[in-house]
């Protein structure tokens, strides 16, 4: 077992034993389920909308070269600078370079999972720049020096009490158990930052090829301020974010809101097509778009799993996943948690290091059923399992399977094994769940069904035929 798998198992074991935390996550999500269903029902056909969304992303991803080229060319025509980053290092170096070149003093950042993926904040801080997360949830986890718990709700694991204590310790604010007061504390801190910052960093939810624009979806207004006031705006965009047409947003914006957060529409859906244009009142002097590959093309090359690039990062699959709800977001040790993270992380960070995530599934299919772009998530987990075994055959498992086949093909052996089992059973009971128990992996947390005193074959033979 590799280090990542061991860490995952340890963390998952700890978290699943924490019943209070599990209750807390369930409570936090219960409102989401009700609102998601309410707004799904307002659609004339949610399933038709999913079909259409899947088809649009399929078109975009399977003609990615053409649409990306169009996207970049149109942006550049309006004065934006597009940087193509083959890997995380190139992207980090570019952003640090822009910050250095302009001698920026403070950087404000809105939520971006792509920036998390490339550890942009660490790189900027190491280069001596201060970066402040402006999304409330991200700001909270930044103050706690921990990664986001969930790709959409970064601080969902924390109670108001914990947040109040955190603000008291780090910002010197008065303790309060009122979420509104806590929000206003962050608002006041952030207001100063927006006005002072000379560089704003954002992600993007969609990249519209037809018009050369990025689209950012948010509720708080922090991304709008981040991209309005500083003189430089840098957006980190995964290459798979492309949509062919502007009109596609008419479908994707409400679907993202409903699937992701149980809202009919998110508060701000904003399109950015360049730096401040002649005649405009404000906006950045420079607009940089970093198009990030970082092994997405390897996933693209796998035709079978290519559709995992359709993901719009709504987080719906996390919210319904029984594994996520029990092990929690931090156990994964990945940027992207839950089913989609388990599918794509082995591609982005190495199959053999992250194959254990494919087992972090009950294969119930709740993720596949809820995905607004119809990614066949639980099947891709099976694909990853198969690919992992192909890459490194599991010899012990193979031997066991061969033994099983040997036994099942030979009635005498089968009978003998059953007989041995019945003999061994009382002995196993003495050591059940302890280190001496050969069935420990199972019996540590579960009971093992007892073997019947007589086998079916025995009963059948003894049966008097009338």
């Amino acid at each position, binding site marked *: 077992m590799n280090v990542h798998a061991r860490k995952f198992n340890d963390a998952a074991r700890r978290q699943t034993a924490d019943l209070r935390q599990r209750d807390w996550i369930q409570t936090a999500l219960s409102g989401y389920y009700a609102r998601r269903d309410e707004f799904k029902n307002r659609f004339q056909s949610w399933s038709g909308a999913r079909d259409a969304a899947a088809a649009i992303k399929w078109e975009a991803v399977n*003609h990615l070269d053409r649409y990306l080229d169009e996207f970049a060319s149109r942006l550049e025509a309006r004065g934006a600078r597009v940087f193509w980053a*083959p890997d995380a290092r190139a992207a980090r170096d570019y952003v640090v370079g822009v910050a250095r070149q302009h001698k920026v003093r403070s950087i404000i950042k809105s939520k971006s999972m792509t920036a998390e993926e490339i550890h942009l904040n660490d790189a900027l801080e190491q280069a001596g720049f201060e970066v402040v997360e402006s999304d409330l949830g991200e700001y909270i986890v930044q103050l706690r020096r921990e990664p986001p718990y969930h790709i959409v709700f970064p601080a969902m694991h924390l109670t108001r009490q914990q947040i109040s204590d955190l603000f008291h310790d780090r910002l010197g604010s008065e303790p309060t158990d009122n979420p509104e007061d806590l929000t206003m504390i962050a608002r006041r801190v952030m207001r100063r930052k927006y006005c002072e910052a000379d560089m704003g960093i954002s992600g993007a939810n969609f990249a519209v090829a037809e018009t050369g624009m990025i689209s950012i979806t948010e509720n708080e207004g922090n991304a709008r301020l981040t991209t309005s006031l500083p003189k430089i705006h840098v957006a980190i965009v995964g290459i798979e974010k492309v949509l062919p047409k502007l009109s596609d947003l008419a479908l994707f914006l409400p679907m993202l809101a409903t699937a992701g957060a149980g809202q009919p529409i998110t*508060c701000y859906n904003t399109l950015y097509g360049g730096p401040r244009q002649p005649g405009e009142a404000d906006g950045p002097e420079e607009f940089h778009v970093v198009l990030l590959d970082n092994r997405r093309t390897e996933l693209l090359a796998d035709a079978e799993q290519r559709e995992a690039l359709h993901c719009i990062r709504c987080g719906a699959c996390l919210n319904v996943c029984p594994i996520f709800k029990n092990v929690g977001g931090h156990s994964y040790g990945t940027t992207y948690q839950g089913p989609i993270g388990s599918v794509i992380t082995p591609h982005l960070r190495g199959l053999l290091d992250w194959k254990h995530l494919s087992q972090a599934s009950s294969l119930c299919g709740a993720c596949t059923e809820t995905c607004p772009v*119809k990614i066949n998530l639980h099947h891709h987990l099976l694909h990853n399992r198969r690919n992992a075994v192909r890459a490194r055959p599991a010899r012990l498992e193979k031997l066991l399977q061969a033994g099983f086949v040997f036994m099942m093909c030979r009635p005498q052996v089968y009978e003998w094994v059953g007989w041995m089992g019945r003999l061994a059973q009382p002995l196993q009971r003495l050591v059940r769940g302890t280190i001496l128990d050969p069935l420990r992996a199972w019996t540590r947390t579960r009971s093992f069904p007892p073997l019947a005193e007589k086998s079916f074959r025995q009963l059948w033979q003894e049966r008097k035929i009338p």
Partner: protein
Amino acid sequence: MTNREIVLGRIREALETAPPHPAFHDDSTGTSPLPASPQSWLPRVGRTLEERIELFRRNAEDLKAEFHVCAGPAEAIQHVKNLASAGGWKKIGRHSGALTDPVARELGLAEVRTDGGYAVNDLESCDAGLTECEALVAQTGSVLVSAPGAGGRALSVLPPHHVVLARRSQMVPDLGAALQHMQEKFKGKFPSFFSFISGPSRTGDIERILVLGAHGPKKLTILLLP
């Protein structure tokens, strides 16, 4: 080789493997579900303008925005005056426009005009931002603002109260119609910014409890003029 060529080269190489059929794993009939228009799946919008205004009102109120239909400019002016005295406004931010000019004149408060540039701290200290818009979207209760049509990027998000003045003719049925309106109006020469605003700024990041006024306006008022 440039980075652009490297990444595009990788993509083209990856796409050489034929893609599986878009519906290869599901139970649909296998016909392409590519839509002519998404209107048939999205929430209904009503047929007449009156129905759409009513739908907009319901949606906007659900989003905690205030929506008021004004009989004429005089009523709009009176409404904004009431907001100003109730909110104790001392200074407003605004841009010049056919709808904003008369209201601001009657209001007679100190103002920061964003047309052609402004000082950030000046705008930040305003009590309200007064703007026009590109369209109102009945289906979602959203206001579509653009950089040239609403005094830039920050005016509609920095002051704590955003007041929008719109005309009845700006009511469109859905997001698709609003986006089409932008494409026809700007014909490829797009502004650098446009945004669908759906209610006042909000967050649910603390215990998933709704709080208004996270970073943007705590209040959004939409006044519909003839």
